[in-house]
């Protein structure tokens, strides 16, 4: 999809900003332009889906915190808070 409207983004521009868009780091105006392009461009939307899936996969692989570690750190913090350290 090439931008026929001067306000439209080209595929190249969309792919350049795609990661920032998925990270919520683009401004509202650019985000609206991105959505407008992605709605009409299956190739760019496919890339959006892949990068969104990468982000989701990374979170699911790495996000867990060992509850024993969490409990130990919390206990340490509470001892600090109450002057026991």
């Amino acid at each position: 999809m090439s931008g026929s409207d001067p306000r439209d983004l080209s595929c190249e521009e969309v792919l350049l900003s795609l990661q920032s868009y998925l990270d919520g780091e683009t401004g509202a105006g650019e985000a609206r332009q991105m959505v407008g392009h992605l709605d009409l461009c299956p190739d760019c939307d496919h890339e959006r889906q892949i990068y969104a899936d990468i982000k989701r996969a990374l979170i699911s692989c790495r996000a867990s915190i060992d509850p024993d570690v969490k409990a130990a750190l919390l206990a340490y913090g509470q001892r600090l808070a109450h002057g026991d350290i």
Partner: protein
Amino acid sequence: MVLLMTPATDTTAAFEQYVLPELDLLYRTARSLTHGDADAQDLVQETLLRAYRAIDRFDGRYPRAWLLTIMRNANINRARKRQPDLLADPDLTFERSARGADNDGPEDLVVGATFDATVEAAFDALPEKFREVVELVDLNGLSYQETADMLDVPVGTVMSRLHRARKRIRDHIAEVGLDALGGDH
């Protein structure tokens, strides 16, 4: 003199209000900055100790940013104590690696794996400086600016490392033929 051993009630309350709710963030961030869980726990404990000592001077605004700054400084001190191995430019190292200098690429690690496992293997194969940026943004939910502050690099460097790292993961997905799946896996 037991009273002198007991912290002021407002100190305890402030610590419990501003610091303890951020333990998850602190631990995840520490894991991104260190090698192994034991180092991460040490860094969190050091951060908690520094935060406790400084809580009386904290104005209550932006506790997350305040704690991340404390952790960043604590981590810099740890690195200085351990080794001054700061000469290698991670960006140049990454470029050399991306051009094919590494023979033990993620494709050697994953055969017929699922999308998630492929992503994880490609992530593990990233150079450390690029992996830590992905961890800070994707896993810990830090903004580009927060990540830049944590690592003491410009925002543009964060964006460059992050985008190239994910592009490398994305390219690996294409190499193993998983990019046609879209979100269905």
